[in-house]
């Protein structure tokens, strides 16, 4: 499940983000709409997560308290995920709804239970989508971006558009392969590219 190794057989352009000192955590919201993880067959969620940088067994069992698989709350990290599915992870959440959706929560019986099932067409897909929210995104953004994540063009473009005001504070450079892209209100990504490997330059001063 190593994203970078898989990229050797799936070539795509690299976007390198150079964060301003102390700012790399502010890229955490990049993870809320989701990035892609190569996935060839149904596999336990825990196995997928353990292949990602920053996700130790202890971390995923203690910090990740809310799991959605295709929008349905899940109670176990052993549950299978599959090509084409969307997984969202969050820390423990407030409110009755937070308690209802919490992994193994005492109020789980108050959920509406739509079935989680493996769609027949899952083998048409090559990736699953992983969304990271709140403290989980904040904890993991640096190791994930240091190694690189796969993102779809519209997701990345939307992030740049919505953060246009903040990007000059957060980043000192954006580099597409080896070419710098001006950081302005209308950051242009090549339209003919659907996927990018997005990474930050390792910034030891910023950890």
């Amino acid at each position, binding site marked *: 499940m190593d994203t970078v190794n898989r990229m050797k057989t799936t070539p795509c352009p690299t976007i390198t983000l150079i964060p301003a000192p102390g700012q790399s955590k*502010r890229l955490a919201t990049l993870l809320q709409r989701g990035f892609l993880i190569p996935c060839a067959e149904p596999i336990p969620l825990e196995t997928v997560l353990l292949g990602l940088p920053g996700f130790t067994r202890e971390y995923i069992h203690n910090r990740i308290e809310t799991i959605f698989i295709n*929008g349905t709350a899940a109670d176990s990290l052993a549950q299978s995920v599959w090509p084409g599915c969307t997984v969202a992870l969050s820390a423990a959440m*407030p409110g009755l709804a937070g308690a209802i959706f919490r992994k193994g929560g005492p109020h789980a019986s108050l959920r509406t239970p739509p079935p989680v099932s493996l769609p027949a067409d899952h083998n048409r897909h090559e990736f699953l989508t992983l969304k990271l*929210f709140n403290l989980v995104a904040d904890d993991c953004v640096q190791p994930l971006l240091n190694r690189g994540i796969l993102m779809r063009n519209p997701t990345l473009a939307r992030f740049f558009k919505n953060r246009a005001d*903040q990007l000059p504070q957060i980043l000192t450079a954006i580099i597409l392969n080896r070419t710098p892209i001006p950081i302005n209100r209308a950051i242009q990504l090549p339209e003919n590219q659907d996927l990018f490997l997005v990474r930050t330059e390792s910034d030891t001063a910023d950890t």
Partner: protein
Amino acid sequence: MAEKIYRVNMTNLTTSTEPVPDKWLGLGGRGLTSTIVAEEVEPTCHPLGGKNKLVVAPGLLSGTVAANSGRLSIGAKSPLTGTIKEANSGGTAAQMLAKLGCKALIIEGLPKGDAWYTLLISEDGVTIQEEQELVGKGNFDVVATIGKRTDEKHGIITIGPAGEMKLSAANISIKDPDSHLRSSGRGGLGAVMGSKRVKCIIIEPTDAKVEIVDQEKFTEANRAFTKALVDNPISQALGTYGTNVLVNIINEAGALPTRNFTSGQFDGHEEISGETMHDTIVERAGKPKHNCHKGCVIQCSQIYNDKEKKYKTSGFEYESIWAMGADCCVDNLDHIAEADHLMDDIGVDSIETSVAMGVAMEGGLLEFGDGEGICRILREDVAKGTPLGRIIGCGAASVGRAFGVTRVPVVKNQAIPAYDPRAVKGIGITYATSTQGADHTMGYTIATNILGVGGSVDPLSHEGQVELSRNLQIATAAIDSTGMCLFIAFAALDDEKCLPALVDMINARFGADLTADDVTNLGISILKTERAFNEAAGFTNKDDRLPEFFYEEPIAPHNVVWDIPDEELDKFWDF
């Protein structure tokens, strides 16, 4: 200072101070407001008439140093729902009233003329003063004007123009430690205050302290209680992102009501999420973490600045952001913040008014997504009381009737907040059966097992879901009586020392010997009292229902309808 009941008669403009009757001694907050309303208000009375009473009560632990104990309860018969109502809020007032020995303030009667009044509460009791300068002012101006008239330390409870116009969505605002506002939002209690022509209540600071029978035991229990709150992981999320951390989660669950409850997911969720809000606040030198009253150790509030880094709003809650955001399809946090600021200033409930806007958008008043249009209508119509503004300011059901819209998400006339009941059935049970109309805070996530109200039937059956909702409502009613912020519930769920420490603090404060069972019995008694009032006002089990469209229109993405049978809902009151 010994506790007293302060009574204000607006008919003959007299005030009195009474000893606390024995039967009210063990009550505070919602327990006390609901008991007084049930005992003293004729259930069938007109909510804006002379027979209704507005009751203000700090919680049992308000005024002490107990963490998160500064919530103020305000109760009356609601002009929005026609039921009994309690709305609670942070701000400085609860702690100040408790230190003055005010167990409850009861405002009754109606003045005969057109004059407006201010009530001043001090160590000497309550005085009524005729008010001219503040009349017609928005809430922020009221706070600033009183700040100049007195000093910044006075507590303030006030209504905006909406309360003066007696709109059914009018709220009551409470000054917070930074001279901004917190709101007792739901149920139109601002209209009740307006009907009594009380523009504001000013509370004088005092050096007096709340009496504590066993200080040592109290300090020890508070230490354990505070530790449980601080250590809880949800406190960390709340202190970082506020309650708006829920946008992404509820959207992911397909339970984020969007475009007037026609979908469970909002494409613009990322733009209004707690995570995005946090970054925006940091970028604009606001405060992502802030408290609504002194002594809160969770600090879920925040200060949101505009693009010029000037204060725009605070206490920017998930439910308000959802309502103006997803429900009206506005994906611009600045427009939502501007609307929130306007609603705070006008003094209308930001859930009711925003849901009303969503219904009005379906009725063709504005395009969905038109955040600037919403702000314009708030400024030019609701604030000024044009006929359109009054229709919107009277809530979602009022707009549905005026615009011929049938998809009106209300229960007992009060707007359903933030969690679609088709996608989270358990919350729907609470919306349907609550004594106060649809309200997400009525059945909170309290540790029912510790309170001895854990479930006894299969939790996955409809019967089990109804039972759990009932138990949560019982526990919530009890917590609402303590003056505690409901967010203590998360720690109570995870840390078995938390609730016992809370009970220990109450015991140490009053020299009592309560057990968890007593707390549960208090909750049961409050619910039954409220239910009895509603029944006497004419409500039946037929009012404990969700609107028709929830049964008929599946909601995307899960394509589910509301399907809890009526007979199961009716079992809610079998206790």
